[in-house]
Every structure is written in structure tokens, then in C-alpha cells.
């Protein structure tokens, strides 16, 4: 993030590219400063780093048979004790370890799905904002159509049809959640398109793609970034909901899947709170962290919000 280390060419004036890079670096540094000033955002960021660390470290450190049902030694939904801090699941596996394992898949699906949504949303938004007339009309009708669909229903149908796997979950969540972004990006694009320098570029004969790629995209990037982070929070919630409804990849343990197993194996009857609480709390905290980060970023981007 530091701007200091860049060696500056002394002899000739900086090229356009270098200028752009410098400007970009400058604004990134500004952004970081504004972000850092917000305590909630920093709390979220620190929380997220902890979660990422858990996701990376758990498979390396935890015993390799933590997920094995045939090797499990604990009792059937046994309450917490010295050996199993958070009790055991219906097969006698440690809930604590299962919860830690669940971090990785939950984060991967959440982040990947949000990226898919952002790519589609940004692309559609910029194109619809740039072109007038029919293209824009059609794209906006499609966007509207996706906004109108009951998203959870559509996601359920997609997963059921395409089969339960990580890739399908990512696609299903991504496809059902890009429309809002497209709308916001399109509005932003329209605003930018009206600015004088873009009119100048147009007058100088810049092509559509060059206009969109070189002028519009860099300008909407901060907004895209902020809304991606918010979208991750949403994607994680959707993933958990889908998994809880039984739409999970059986080979990849996520928190939602844990809660589904708890629910369908009678944890409620058994009063096995240790099986229900940890995965849910993890979802809550990780979503909260992403939300805090996203909000802080939005504030950092928008001076009007700083009070």
C-alpha cells in the first residue's frame, strides 16, 4: 500500500501509464487511511484475518481422521467434556474440529460466489450504462427479471437441477445475486459518462471498449470493491441457508451443512445445543465481519458519509 518504494524515473516526464499508476496508488493510500480511521471496519478486518487463518491452518494442524466416521471415538451427541470441548456429533466426532473444518468451504463458496456475481454485475452494469437504446433496454430488462425472481427459490432449483457440488453452489448463488450490483454500477457509469474527460476521449475517437475499459472501469472499481465485500456476506448467508435446506456438497463440510445435520439428526430433541450453537455463531461472526468491512469501505469511499 505504500507509495514510497516506487522508483521514479528522473530524466524524462513520467509516462501516462506511470502517471495513472501513481494516481491509483495515491488514492489507494487515501482509502486505506480513511478505512483505518474506522474502528468497526478494523475490527471486521482483523476478524476476517483470523477466519482466513483458521481456514488455512485447520487442515494442516488438525488430526487427519477428524472427519472420519469409522475412526470417531466419542459418544453419540455427547455433551462437552475435557476431551471434546464442544461435544460430539451424531457419529461421535468432535464438533469443535468439524466447525473449524467448515470455515474453509464456507469462505471459499462465499467469496467465489460473490466474485461471480460481481463480474456479471459489473459487466452488465457498465455495458448497459455505456450503450444507449436497445442494448441497454434488453440488459436492463434481464436485470429486472433477475431482481424480480424469488432468488432463494431460483437458487434452490438451480442446485437441485445441476447437482450438489461446490461449483454449482457458487454458480447458483452468483447468478441469483448480481442484479442489484448491475443496477448500481449502471447508474454510476451513466454519471461518469457525462463527465467532460470522457466526452473528450470520445471526441478523440476512443472506441467503446477503450472508453469502458480505460475510463469507466477504473472509476467504478472502488464501488465494485465495496459491494463485493457486502456481497460476500450475502453469499455466505445464502450458502448457509441452501446447505441447511439440504443443498450442500456432501464431500465438503460447511457450517450450513453441519446445522442441517444437527437439525435432521434430532439435535433439537436431544437438546444438543453444543451442536447447534458453534456453526451458527461462526456464520454470524464472519458475516458480521464482512459487513463491517464493507460499510467501513463505503464510508471511506464516500466523503458525504463521514460525520
Amino acid at each position, binding site marked *: 500500500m505504500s507509495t514510497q518504494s516506487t522508483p521514479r524515473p528522473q530524466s524524462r516526464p513520467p509516462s501516462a501509464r506511470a502517471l495513472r499508476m501513481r494516481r491509483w496508488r495515491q488514492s489507494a493510500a487515501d482509502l486505506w487511511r480513511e478505512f483505518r480511521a474506522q474502528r468497526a471496519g478494523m475490527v471486521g478486518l482483523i476478524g476476517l484475518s483470523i477466519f482466513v487463518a483458521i481456514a488455512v491452518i485447520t487442515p494442516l494442524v488438525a488430526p487427519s481422521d477428524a472427519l472420519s466416521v469409522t475412526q470417531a471415538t466419542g459418544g453419540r451427541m455427547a455433551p462437552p467434556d475435557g476431551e471434546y470441548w464442544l461435544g460430539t456429533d451424531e457419529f461421535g466426532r468432535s464438533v469443535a474440529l468439524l466447525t473449524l473444518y467448515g470455515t474453509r468451504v464456507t469462505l471459499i463458496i462465499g467469496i467465489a460466489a460473490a466474485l461471480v456475481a460481481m463480474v456479471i454485475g459489473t459487466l452488465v452494469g457498465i455495458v448497459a450504462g455505456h450503450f444507449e437504446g436497445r442494448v441497454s433496454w434488453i440488459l436492463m430488462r434481464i436485470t429486472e*427479471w433477475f*431482481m424480480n425472481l*424469488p432468488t432463494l427459490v431460483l437458487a434452490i432449483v438451480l442446485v437441485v437441477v445441476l447437482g450438489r457440488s461446490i461449483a454449482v453452489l457458487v454458480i447458483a448463488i452468483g447468478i441469483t445475486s448480481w442484479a442489484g450490483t448491475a443496477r448500481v454500477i449502471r447508474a454510476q457509469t451513466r454519471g461518469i459518462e457525462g463527465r467532460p474527460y470522457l466526452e473528450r476521449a470520445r471526441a478523440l475517437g476512443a472506441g467503446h471498449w477503450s472508453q469502458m475499459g480505460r475510463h469507466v472501469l477504473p472509476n467504478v472499481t472502488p464501488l465494485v470493491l465495496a459491494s463485493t465485500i457486502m456481497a460476500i456476506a450475502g453469499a455466505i*448467508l445464502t450458502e448457509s*441457508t441452501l446447505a441447511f435446506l439440504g443443498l450442500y456438497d456432501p464431500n465438503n463440510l460447511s457450517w*450450513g451443512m453441519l446445522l442441517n445435520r444437527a437439525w435432521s439428526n434430532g439435535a433439537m430433541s436431544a437438546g444438543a445445543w453444543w451442536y447447534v450453537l458453534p456453526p451458527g455463531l461462526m456464520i454470524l461472526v464472519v*458475516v458480521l465481519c464482512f459487513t463491517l468491512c464493507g460499510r467501513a469501505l463505503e464510508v471511506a469511499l464516500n466523503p458525504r458519509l463521514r*460525520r
Partner: protein
Amino acid sequence: MAAEATTPLPAGSAQGPAGKLDNAARTGVGTGLGKYLLNRVSGAVVSLLAVLFSAFFIFRVLPGDPIDNLMRDMQSATPELEQALRAEWGLDEPLWVQFWSYLTGTLTGDLGVSIQYQVPVMQLFTDRLGPTVLLGGTALVLSVLIGFSLGAKSAWLSGSKFDKRNVNIALIFFSAPTFWVAMIAIIIFSRELRLFPTGRMVSAHTPDRFWPQFLDIAHHMVLPAITLTLMIYAGYLLTMRASMLDEMGNDYITTARAKGLRDVVVRRRHAMRNALLPTTTLVFMAIGNVINGALVTEMIYTWPGLGYTFFQAIAVPDYPVLQGLFVIFASATVLANLAADVLYWFIDPRARKA
């Protein structure tokens, strides 16, 4: 725990109306309510048609054959019977014939016959609509009341302890998965404390008279309504707070204050009234969110509404029911959006110019 993925949480300026405004501005070749309305309504009609078309095909691609699934439960399954059942639901016809009868049927209010329940889908829906509206409506009203008032107050006292605590609590509920909150609520209030039933809408033993029924339904509705309210109020609170902050930055507020008007008056007469309207359009626009929440809430509390019916139907799969529900949910969103558009025209003069 709002927004299972769809609505980006507004942190600052209310994003929805901004997009709306732009949308409206673009369309405005002419001025006047008539042209504007025509434009919005035609857009909604296109959306409705798209919904109608897609509903049919989306559910045709669901795996599993409803007749095969029915046959599996029978011991005297014969090919003749299978043929008879297929003919009964028109599943032996070519796809386009099925599509045509679906289209004409839907437009005349005939959604077909449920495969699972063997009653007209329309009849099933009229049975189930009431509970959904009751639950969703109660939660919506509660969350609007709570969200708006807390949001406005929070903005007014922006930066205070009250504001911070308010926002933090809202963010926590915003981040919690609905189904999990429902599970915890059931464990604590139904299983352990035994204050409320674990699910359903009414018990069989309740005398069939108004007051016992009313009280029984109220008793059953407490947990689902609170769950759903907690899920949606946070979004409203944060939106209301953001629009209020926007309004408070305006000159007229400063002027009004400078004129020596009392804070209360300024807030109530000016800021809140102006902030209320854009927020209200957002409420309409976020109706899809309420539907998502109602789906999950109804499923966990076995609340006999439309969302619950959806989950019952998906395992069969009961095409007529699924199609019908899809059309209903999507149409509700389209119409709510249309309402938001129209409302917006009245609120924002900028939408009228262009």
C-alpha cells in the same frame, strides 16, 4: 440476517432510489404522469410475461419424475397404471402442448391440479395465502415500525451511544442466518421454557370459536413473527438512518434550526417526512427479501403458508404447485416494484423532470 444475498446493505446514501431515479430519468421522453406510468406499467408487463414463460421451463428441468415418485410408493405399480397417471396430468403430451395449456390455464386463473394433493392448485393457494399474509404482514408492519422509528432516532442522535448500540444490534441480526435464529428460538422458548409451540398455526384441540382460535393462532405466531421481524427490521433501520442523515445534511434543515424551530419540530415536520418516502419505496423494493425470509421461517416453524407448500412440493416434484408459486412470488415482486416506481414519481420531483 436480512438479505439472504440479494439486497446490498445500504451503509450510506440509499442506493435503490438513486438507481431508480436514473432509470426514470432515462425513460422520460415526455413528461407527465401518464407517459411515466405507461412506461413503468409496460415494463412490468414485460417482466410478468418473462416470469410466466420462465416458470414453466425452470420446473420442467427439475430432476425426478413425479409419476415415478408416486409409483414407488405403490406395490401394485403396473405400466398401465403409469400410463393412466401420466395421461391424468397431461404429462404424456409433447412439451409445447403442455406449455400451451399451462399458458392459457394460468391466464384464465386455472393453475392445474396438484400432483401431490390432487386438488386444484388455485384452491390450495387460497388455503395457504392467508397464513403467509398473516405472518408476513405482521412481521412487515412490526419491522417497519421498529426499523423506521429506531432508524430515524438513531440518525438524529448520530454518533451517540444510543446510535452505536442501535446500529450494532441491527448489524448482528442482519448477519445471523434466519434458520439458525429460529432454531435457537425453538430450543430456548419451546423446548426448554415451553412458552410457545414448536410449530404449526393452530392446535386441533382448540374449540372452533373465534376467541379461542384467535388466541391460539396468536400464540403460535409469536416465534415465527419475531424471527421474521428480526430478520427484516435491520435493513429498514439502516436505510432509514441513512436517508435521515442525507436529509439532515440539507440546507433547509440548518435553516430551520437557525430559525429557532425546536428540534422535535424540525425532525418530525421536515427531516423525517422527507426521509420517510424514499425509505418507503425501498420497503416495496425489498419485498423479495421478505419472501425469502418467509420461505425459511415457514419451513422451520411448519407454518402452513405458501413457502411451506413450496418445500413440500419440491421433493415430489409437484410441477403445477411449483410453477404457480413461482409465478405468485415473482409477480408479487414485480407489482411491488411497480408500486415503488409510481410512489417514487410522487416523491421525487427529479423523476418528473428529465
